[in-house]
Structure formats: structure tokens, C-alpha cells
């Protein structure tokens, strides 16, 4: 950042090239930024790598680790993964997480497409008030909502159900999704809508055949942000579910850590890795949408 375009073009002086010590200093002075970069990168990935390596180790091997060289498993085995996958409740919990991620994302994005379109295209009375009414709840920490929502759930008779989780997950995802989508829709020229209107297209046709295909990147961004939020959610599922029938992966991971007496860390770590793997895979495939979405969501 401090090397401006000009400085970068400058070649090392001949005298520097001859003197290896000075040359070394020169290289370091131009590339020192790699030192903090590597250190920070190691700090960021160490927890995941340590957990990953432990998931391939046996329990004895984990407990007997004494030096850094014990980082690599000596006899890597898939025993822990086998145990997690063979456990009878795992498919239920995994299905619940997947179901909630998909259902709440579809509901939230559908509602947000409509709302985003209205905010991007129409001038109407109370527009600003309504926009704030949808956006401001984004700043509510979800943990602060659990007591009143718990009472609401009890009075609606939706205890321990995926339906209630879908509703609450959708609602918490809507503010951000509406904001991101309204931004994307506003960037699409109005001429497209007008041309379609002249051709006799209805509002639904405009949305379905024009706006949604054109703003596909924005919709993917909103989808990913909703999926990630739902997949990783914890306070709601902790407060609103009691049995395994509506439990999700994070909650099960939490219980796993609590319930085991002598901790079988290889199983706990295998479960952790399995629960974060789907998100990491989505990330690797769709990284640029995520970067765009997070930045858009932050900078108003």
C-alpha cells in the first residue's frame, strides 16, 4: 500500500545487486508485509487445522500429544467420522439443519424480493418509515428476543417444531436480505421495466422474467447470507426446541460437548468438522458473491 506505482517500477540499484547482504535487506524491506500476513493467516486457520487433525486421531493419540510434531496423525483413521455418521440421530439433525436452511432462506428471500422491489421502484407514502421499520430490527441481537419469542411460541402452540424455527429464522434474515436486494434492484435500469410494461407484462411477469434473471448475482448473495445465518444459528434453537425432532447441528454439537463424560475429542472434532464443512464448500464455490454481499450489507 505504501509502495506507490512509481516505487514498484523502480529496479534495485546495481550496487545493491552486488552486495548480497544489502540485497537481502532490500528484499525484506519490500516484502516485509508477508511476515504479518503469514502470522495472521496461521492464527486464523490453526483452530480448524488442529481440530481437523484431531478428528483423524485416536483418543489415546490426542491425549498423548506432547510436541508440535504430534500435529500430524500417525495412523489416520476415519473411525470418529464413522461413529458420527452411524449414530442414529445424526441423519435427523442433519436433515433438520438442511431443511431449516432451505425453508427459511426461501421464505426470507421471497419476501425480500417483493419488499426490495417495492423500495427500489416505487415512490409511495410512508416509504422511509417503512424502510426503517424493516431495516432497524437488524440491530436487535437475537439472544435478546428469546424470552418474548418463547412466550409467543407457547401461546401459539408451536413448541419444539421446525415451523416455528422456520418463521423466526426467516424473520431475522429479512432485514439484511431486503436491504441487499433493494440495492441490487435499484442498480438495474428502470427502462427494462418500462419496456416490459409497454409490452403488456404484469407486475409478476416483470419480476419473474426480467428482474430476477437480471439481478441473479444479488439474489445468490442474499441466498448465501440467509443460508449461513440459518445453518449457524444457536440461541433460538436452544430456547425453542426440547427433543431431537427439531434439533439442528449446532445445538447437537453443544449437547455433545456437554453430555460426554470423558471427552472423546476425536468424535467431537469430527462432528465439528462435519457441521462446518457444507458452509466451507459453499464458500469455496461462491466466494465472490459472499465478499460482495458482506461488504454491501455493511456499507450503507
Amino acid at each position, binding site marked *: 500500500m505504501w509502495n506507490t506505482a512509481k516505487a514498484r517500477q523502480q529496479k534495485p540499484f546495481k550496487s545493491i545487486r552486488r552486495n548480497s547482504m544489502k540485497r537481502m535487506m532490500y528484499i525484506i524491506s519490500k516484502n516485509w508485509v508477508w511476515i504479518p500476513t503469514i502470522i495472521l493467516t496461521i492464527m486464523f486457520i490453526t483452530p480448524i487445522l488442529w481440530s481437523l487433525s484431531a478428528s483423524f486421531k485416536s483418543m489415546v493419540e490426542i491425549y498423548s500429544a506432547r510436541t508440535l510434531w504430534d500435529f500430524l496423525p500417525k495412523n489416520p483413521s476415519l473411525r470418529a467420522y464413522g461413529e458420527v455418521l452411524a449414530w442414529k440421530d445424526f441423519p435427523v439433525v442433519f436433515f433438520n439443519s438442511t431443511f431449516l436452511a432451505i425453508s427459511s432462506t426461501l421464505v426470507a428471500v421471497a419476501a425480500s424480493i417483493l419488499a426490495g422491489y417495492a423500495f427500489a421502484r416505487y415512490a409511495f407514502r410512508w416509504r422511509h418509515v417503512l424502510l426503517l421499520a424493516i431495516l432497524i430490527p437488524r440491530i*436487535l441481537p437475537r439472544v435478546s428476543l428469546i424470552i418474548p419469542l418463547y412466550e409467543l411460541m407457547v401461546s401459539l402452540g408451536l413448541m419444539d417444531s421446525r415451523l416455528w424455527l422456520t418463521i423466526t429464522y426467516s424473520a431475522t434474515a429479512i432485514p439484511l436480505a431486503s436491504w441487499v436486494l433493494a440495492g441490487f434492484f435499484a442498480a438495474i435500469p428502470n427502462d427494462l421495466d418500462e419496456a416490459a410494461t409497454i409490452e403488456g407484462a404484469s407486475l409478476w411477469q416483470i419480476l419473474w422474467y426480467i428482474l430476477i434473471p437480471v439481478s441473479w448475482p444479488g439474489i445468490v448473495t442474499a441466498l448465501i447470507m440467509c443460508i449461513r445465518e440459518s445453518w449457524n444459528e444457536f440461541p433460538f434453537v436452544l430456547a425453542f426446541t426440547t427433543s431431537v425432532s427439531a434439533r439442528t447441528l449446532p445445538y447437537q454439537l453443544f449437547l455433545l460437548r456437554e453430555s460426554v463424560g470423558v471427552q472423546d475429542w476425536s468424535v467431537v472434532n469430527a462432528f465439528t468438522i462435519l457441521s462446518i464443512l457444507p458452509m466451507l464448500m459453499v464458500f469455496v464455490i461462491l466466494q465472490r458473491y459472499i465478499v460482495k454481499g458482506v461488504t454491501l450489507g455493511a456499507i450503507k
Partner: protein
Amino acid sequence: MNPASKAYKRQKMLKAMYPYFLIAPALAFVMLILAYPVVSGFIGSLYTYDMFTLESEFAGLNNYLRLFTNPRFQNSLLRSVILAGGTIGLGLFLSLSFALCLNSIRIFKAFFRGVSLVPWLVSGIAAAVMFRFLFSGNGGLIYVLYESLGFQAVSWLGHSGRAMLVLILTNTWFLCPFAILVMFAGLQTIDPNYYDAAAIDGCYGLRTLWHVTVPLIKPMIGISLIWLSFASFSIFDIVLPTTGGGPGRATEVMAVAMYRVAFHALDYATGYAIMTVILVINIAMSFVYLKLFRV
């Protein structure tokens, strides 16, 4: 169609209602699930409940008075402030450093940016479990490092001060990616001419950072601060699996205290009052940041 006809007028009315119809579903969700609980929670904090007769009685601000004189709540407020302060300080430093690095390197940019975002994809529970393992006495990395360097290994999660340190580290790791991304986006918008001008005036290194870079990305620093303090003041996912509020109540932050008071002790009135306190602190802090940084 005749412009004066009734059917035309009705159609026009209907068209004018379109935006409201479009907003209705999103608004309904937000009002029912997000706005209603806040209002009902605040109203609930003004009443006291009798556990046996299920009768409620208006108590005004008595619940708050009781709350602020309650040593358990005072403790949790203090723990929250320590956790948030530590996270904000460390998180701001680390994320600004990482953002500056990302902005300076010329190769493998996408890879390193990807690495910086990984914690954002991990659930709070998974992050907490991984850090708990990292600091555990049974094969944790930190323990192994201590042993291999010849130090006497110490218990991290059993000691009140060190347990808080572990929480701060976990929380920072978990919350940093967003701050990094925001500051990185800010750094990329800076016109390189500013640095040329600063270099001509004889300004280099850290002084450029302080006098050129930081003022230019002030709004992004503000957003990062809001994010870090917001998320740390209401943190819940990280604390419960790492320390569970322990040892004793050394890491029982406000959100955990609220959860316990409401769902274990079934004292909803106090739970509502803590909820309101968390909300007020969050809103007040974001106002302060908005004023300071003119986001």
C-alpha cells in the same frame, strides 16, 4: 378504457396500493417476530409476576432497581464490559492489520482474503468447541506448546482470568472477518495519490498510516467498531460451550445471565429487564460511534 369510468379509477387505486402489498409479507414477519417481542419484553420488564398464581402486577422501574443492586447482574455487566473491551481492542488491531496486509500483498490475494473470511462461515458453537479443544489440557495445542517449550502447563478454562482471555480470543477470532472485510473495502477505495503526496511531504511508514490511511477509512473503522461491540455485548454462542459462564460466574456475561435467569430460574421479569439493558447499551453505543466517526 374511459378515464372517467369507475373501473379505471378502481384499477388506479389498486396500482397505488401495489408497493404496500409487496412490502406486507416482509413487514409482517419483521413486526411479529422482531418488533413485537421488543415491545412486549419492555412492557414485561415493568411488571412483576407471581409464579404460583400467575398474576402480574405493575411495578414501574422496580425491576430495574432490583437488577442494578443485584450482585449477580453487576458481575455479569462487568464481565460483559471486559469481554467487549478486550474484543474491541484486540479485534480492531488484528482486523486493521489483516486488512492492511491484504491490501499490500500482490499475489494470492483471493486466497488470503478467503482465509480471513473462514471464521465468518463457522457457527459460534463450532468456533467455541474448537477453541475449547485448543486450550484443553487433553491434547490442546496451547498445552502442547507450553510443554514443548519447557514451561509448566497451566489450566486455562479453570482459572477465572485466563478463561476470560480464552473467551476474548475466541470471540475475536469469530468476529474479526466482518471487520476485516469492511476495512479492506475501505482501503481499496483510497486514491493512491494521497500516498504519493504524503511521500513528497516526507511522510513514511507508521506516520502515513496514522495521518493518511486511518482518517480516510474512519467510517469503516466506525462500522467495524459498531459490529464488534454489538456482537460482543450480546455474545452467547461463544460463551456457553467454551466456559458455560464458569469457573463460578467468572465469565457469566449478560446474555448468559439473562438466559439462566429466565429459563432456569423462571424469573421472566428480571430476564426482560436484562434484555432491555442489553438493547439500550447496544443502541447507545452505536449512537456514540455514529457521532464519533460520522458513518
